[in-house]
């Protein structure tokens, strides 16, 4: 690793301030980055990490303060300018054209002369880059049909091929599995050693502790401290971030009952680039969390949508205790049997951003005929119930219940989804990556709610690409790979064994 000298700051951000309306997102923040380092930026949602990085990437203009690059003041007038200065950012929400192939998406940001010949050259460059950093990706596939993890690889390739020397990664491993993350960090180390500097915006402390040269902690729009990983223990770091201590310990079920749901030989056909489910059979008991571990894009989304009745099964039965085979039922009928669903992509499948918080909350109750008649919706009752639920689920940042759902942060949006889904006392819960992109506090709250439902006797199917989450919560663990369950473990299990089954 190159020696860090304080004279050779690659980037110096001095007293940067940025506000949105009345809201002060970052307040007089000074941050620096040296050549060849991996600098982790830690903090909860809303701590100001993303705002600071968006200023650096030219997406926001700061209200006050200046940015120096190699000691010279620069005025970053926009993303194109940032790119020409060698600053590349991979956003948490990807900026990809979903109808285009991965190759075309990369060609959009990194054009290589004339389209036809450029594409040929670019294909060679991408393939060699991918083998260099150990990426596996079908670059001719439409981006919309790639898994989230694969889409991220496209984004990283875009930045790398754009010649970025300062690489900002916003929550890069939120969607990656253990194995993928390890390979990813190997890449990042390589890049740093070759002289690039990497800013890693993350919630994951282990990553920061293991891979970063320096760690900067933000809270409430200000920088709390910049440290090296050797300076602090993980617990001390947590208390820096949240101002208190949150402990992560496995929380397994104490009371597992009889069989609640039995999946028998589920098969689907592959269409639109989805993975076909092959012979999926598993049982989930009352009071049990069954974790499905696996690399993203191996049939997780297809399994969830087949169970909710959103896509058709070719063969197989879904036996639900007390209701028989529900595999031919419509989604609404399945919900009436006690199924609920927390989808991985909450913005796309679980929230109506333009509708109010109350409307988002009350829709499921409305469909259960709880709020008035067909003729007249009892909006007062819906409002009362929503405000009660919002207090119970500790949904913060709510100015009033008529504000749009789009204004909620990730963690609060997820709490809203969970409060709605749990409002019917469900007996079978399908939760797909329920804590993706959430900060420590929100993650803990979401997991606690799942455990609470389990303790109340519900059966929970937890599909997650985050192996830590699977290990913390699951009583039984199935590993999905290529559309089938390739291994099943009883908790506690060695992390290594699960990881092996995931990539074999």
């Amino acid at each position: 690793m190159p020696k860090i000298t304080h004279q050779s700051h690659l980037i110096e951000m001095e007293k940067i301030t940025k506000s949105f309306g009345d809201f002060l997102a970052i307040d007089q923040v000074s941050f620096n980055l040296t050549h060849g380092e991996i600098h982790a930026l830690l903090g909860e949602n809303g701590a100001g990490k993303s705002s600071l990085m968006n200023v650096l990437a030219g997406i926001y203009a700061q209200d006050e303060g200046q940015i120096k690059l190699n000691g010279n003041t620069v005025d970053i007038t926009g993303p194109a300018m940032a790119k020409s200065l060698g600053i590349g950012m991979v956003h948490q929400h990807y900026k990809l054209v979903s109808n285009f192939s991965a190759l075309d998406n990369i060609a959009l940001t990194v054009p290589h002369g004339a389209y036809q010949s450029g594409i040929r050259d670019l294909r060679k460059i991408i393939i060699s880059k991918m083998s260099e950093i150990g990426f596996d990706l079908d670059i001719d596939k439409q981006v919309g049909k790639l898994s989230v993890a694969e889409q991220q690889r496209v984004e990283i390739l875009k930045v790398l091929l754009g010649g970025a020397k300062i690489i900002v990664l916003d929550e890069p491993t939120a969607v990656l599995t253990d194995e993928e993350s390890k390979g990813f960090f190997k890449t990042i180390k390589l890049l740093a050693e070759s002289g690039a500097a990497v800013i890693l915006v993350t919630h994951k402390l282990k990553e920061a502790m293991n891979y970063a040269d320096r760690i900067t902690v933000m809270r409430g729009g200000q920088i709390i401290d910049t440290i090296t990983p050797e300076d602090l223990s993980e617990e001390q770091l947590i208390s820096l971030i949240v101002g208190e201590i949150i402990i992560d310990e496995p929380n397994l079920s104490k009371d597992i009952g009889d069989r609640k749901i039995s999946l028998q030989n589920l098969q689907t056909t592959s269409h639109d680039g989805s993975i076909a489910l092959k012979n999926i059979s598993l049982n989930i008991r009352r009071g049990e969390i069954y974790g499905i571990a696996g690399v993203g894009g191996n049939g997780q989304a297809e399994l969830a949508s087949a169970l909710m009745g959103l896509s058709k099964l070719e063969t197989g039965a879904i036996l639900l205790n007390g209701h028989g085979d529900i595999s031919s039922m419509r989604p609404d009928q399945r919900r009436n049997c006690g199924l609920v669903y927390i989808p991985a992509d909450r913005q796309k499948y679980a929230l109506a951003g333009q509708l109010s918080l109350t409307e988002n909350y009350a829709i499921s109750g409305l469909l259960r005929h709880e709020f008035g008649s067909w003729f007249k919706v009892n909006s007062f009752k819906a409002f009362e119930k929503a405000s009660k639920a919002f207090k119970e689920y500790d949904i913060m940042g709510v100015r009033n219940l008529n504000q749009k759902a789009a204004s909620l942060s990730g963690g609060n949006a997820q709490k809203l989804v969970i409060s709605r889904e749990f409002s019917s006392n469900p007996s079978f819960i399908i939760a797909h990556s329920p804590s993706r992109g959430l900060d420590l506090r929100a993650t803990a709250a979401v997991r606690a709610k799942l455990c609470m439902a389990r303790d109340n006797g519900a059966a929970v199917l937890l599909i997650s690409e985050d192996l830590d989450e699977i290990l913390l919560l699951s009583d039984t663990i199935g590993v999905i790979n290529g559309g089938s369950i390739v291994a099943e473990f009883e908790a506690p299990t060695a992390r290594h064994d699960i990881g092996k089954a995931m990539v074999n």
Partner: protein
Amino acid sequence: MNYSGNILTKKRLNLEVREPLGLLAKTIILLVSVLFGLSISIFILILSGVNASDLWNEFIIYIFTSQKNLSAVLVQAVPLIIVGLSAAVAFRAKFWNIGIEGQMIFGAIAATFIATNDVGPESMRLTLMFLAAAAGGIGWIILPAIIKIRLDVNEIISTLLMNYIAFNFLLHLLYGSWRDPLTGFPNSQQYDTFENLPLIGWQSLNFSIVIALFLSAVIFWLFVFSRFGYMLRVLHSNANMAQSLGIRVGILIFLATIISGALAGICGFAVSAGIESRMTQSFFVGYGFSGILIAFLARENPIGILIVSLLFSILVIGGQSLQVFYQIPFAMVQLIQAIIVMCVAGSEFFIRYRISILKR
């Protein structure tokens, strides 16, 4: 890579996504954009030789000081209100009903069939015509609705093409067996007195205004208070979510299109039995696109539709007198409509973004 260049600029324009705006701010932006569109229109009209005071007289003074002109505006507003509602209901379900004119034609054909064949007792004739018109409109939207929901056939194409079929069928009737036997003109025979919507005792205003207001109230209730409207809002905002929550999206879209078709059919009846007293070969012309524009400008809000329809109607009536007294082509009215719509559409940009000038 050039890191060392010291890049300084004095001023630059900066574009930022706004926090969601309040109703007042949105209304102000909307009003400003309408005024901006109107000033462009006034400028064009002045260029084409109408002087400013004449414009003021034609569009404001003559209309609001003359009971006759005011009632003409209200009469003209009725069909605009009904097609506006028709478009709004379909759009709420994300069904782009371009076939309003075709549905108007079949509504009028069904009503005229009742009238010319003297179906039912005289006292019930108008009611029957009304119901038949609704059924006719439904009949002409049901096929595009079903193939959209079942086979995912694009409704913009199917409803548009259905317009041509309807129009040619109308001509077939009017130049064939339904031609007026008395005059020989290619329109239906005149309705009997009891087959026309009665006047309500003020100028030329007839009962169709009551129908339009009643339908507006019904759609307002549907959108704002009913469970159906709530589900439509969810569908409109996020169709994936609606499906995932178990809303039966297909049925919802079907019901909304049926209502849209029925309203269009009723509009055909309102024009024929309210204004023309017969079915002509061009009674529907322009209403389809007007309906779409009105629903768009009113953001599918029934009260907004009442207001926008009234403004459109003033434009049409004022435009007619410009045509007569100043030889301004009627296309100018359509031009003005288009300019205003474009300005309002453009105002979306200012609702979403803030533009500021940064100085360094």
